[in-house]
């Protein structure tokens, strides 16, 4: 394991400290926690939005704290959901009187911890709504299982819910639009190499020089299936196909596209993937309103990428276009 760290036990607290030190005009830390909130939090008369999860997904989630997106982000230990007390601190720090929306990625741990925090907040009289993001097309949905995971598409939920919250909308309205995004959102990922949790010291899985994993999540976990390594175009086709089918996209639909790097994959390769994605979508007469390419939701130093599509309508388009001024996402 080769990492620029001091002590595996303190990576999260040092990361949060280094992050807050870099951007004092944009964010502040809730003392004694790994919670980061807008410098001007709580914003009175605005629904607060809190997200978070395990660390190791940077710039998620602290990078999305700011005007037009999140009010607060909670950083758990690496790949480990944050605890209810930390989430509760975030809720309290961002509540400006209109209630707080929790944007939760669909993992058992995240759901349970955020739920318990919501219960604590309600006891204190803070109105809380939850939206569960489950954009991962790799996992089958079933009433007997926990269902699909939340992965990179979550950033677009932050963007659009955040934009609506800026307009002074109610908690119910903000939750409704977040759920609408989730209903129109699909992501599929793949990995060429695994990532290593600092405290574990060795990678989450091993993978041969000529293999790749399809359907990986963002927690260094193995994917849904393993295959021979393929070209960028073939990979793009596999991922895109799954996502397009999942969303039942049709001619003349309009979408936003996100090509997300998982950590170690150069931007060059993401652009090459987009070269294929954009031409396939064009052939399908699906129009692309905006393309996001970069590292939005990573998995430490995993090599690989995910493709996200969000089907847009008038409302979602306008909110997507709205101003956002965060550290990792500016419009």
């Amino acid at each position, binding site marked *: 394991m080769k990492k620029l760290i001091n002590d595996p036990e303190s990576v999260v607290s040092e990361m949060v400290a280094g992050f807050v030190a870099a951007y004092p005009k944009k964010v502040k830390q809730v003392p004694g926690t790994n919670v980061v909130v807008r410098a001007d939090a709580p914003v009175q008369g605005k629904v607060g939005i809190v997200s978070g999860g*395990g660390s190791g997904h940077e710039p998620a989630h602290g990078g999305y704290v700011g005007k037009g997106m999140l009010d607060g982000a909670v950083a758990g*230990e690496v790949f*480990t*959901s944050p605890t209810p007390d930390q989430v509760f601190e975030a809720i309290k720090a961002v509540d400006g009187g209109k209630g707080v929306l929790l944007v939760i990625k669909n993992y058992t741990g995240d759901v*349970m911890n955020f739920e318990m925090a919501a219960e604590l907040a309600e006891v204190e009289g803070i109105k809380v709504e939850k939206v569960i993001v489950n954009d991962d097309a790799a996992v*089958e949905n079933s009433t007997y299982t926990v269902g699909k995971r939340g992965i990179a598409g979550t950033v677009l939920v932050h963007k659009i819910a955040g934009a609506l919250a800026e307009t002074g909308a109610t908690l119910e309205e903000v939750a409704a639009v977040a759920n609408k995004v989730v209903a129109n959102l699909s992501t599929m990922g793949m990995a060429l190499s695994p990532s290593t949790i600092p405290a574990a010291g060795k990678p989450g899985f091993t993978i041969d020089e000529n293999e790749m994993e399809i359907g990986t999540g963002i*927690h260094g976990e193995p994917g849904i299936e393993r295959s021979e390594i393929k070209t960028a175009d073939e990979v793009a086709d596999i991922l895109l196909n799954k996502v397009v089918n999942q969303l039942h996209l049709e001619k003349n639909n309009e979408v936003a596209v996100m090509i997300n790097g998982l950590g170690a994959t150069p931007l060059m390769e993401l652009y090459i993937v987009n070269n294929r994605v954009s031409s396939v979508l064009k052939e399908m007469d699906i129009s692309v309103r905006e393309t996001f390419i970069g590292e939005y939701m990573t998995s430490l130093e995993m090599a690989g990428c995910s493709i996200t599509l969000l089907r847009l309508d008038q409302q979602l388009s306008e909110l997507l276009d709205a101003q956002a001024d965060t550290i990792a996402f500016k419009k």
Partner: protein
Amino acid sequence: MAFTVDEAKLWLINLNKIYQQEKMYLSELDQAIGDGDHGINMARGFNELNKKLETAEYHTTADLFKDAGMVLLSKVGGASGPLYGTAFIKAGGALKDKEEVTKEELAAALFESLEGLKLRGKARLEDKTMLDVWIPAIEFLQNHPKVDWDEFKKLVKEKMEGTKKLEAKKGRASYLGIRSVGHIDPGAASSYLLFVELARVCEGVGL
């Protein structure tokens, strides 16, 4: 003979030692079918709990368990944090202010823990989770007026190992689908360790 606050404390202190020892083993189980942090989470949580136990004084097992639950809840994280946290908080709640706890009372308290786990995690038997150890363990305690602790240890070991053949339906391992078969569930393993250590402590006081 009875289970007092000292026994409860001994259980948790020993458990901490065990989770520190088994940190890598539990994480490796989690690397196979999850995200590889289960041992790290348990070791972090119980280490914090241990620090607390070194300084705090408790008069009842109930208070001890409630506090333990709170520490685990705020230090373990992940899926196991709210689950183990809930388990101890519920057990503490069930024991009220009793100073000594009989075997029946302990079984009843752990039954409340199990109910809490089910409510929080919504998992069922054979979903390949810690419940696959908890459910038979509590059933055994409730159905045997006099517990044969060796039998109990054998049972939880069997059940823990039995998760190997199951396909996960809950937790991260469920994303692997059929590929989750063939691996022991890490939470079942940590729960197995918890029950084995409980058995040792109970044997010691002849519960």
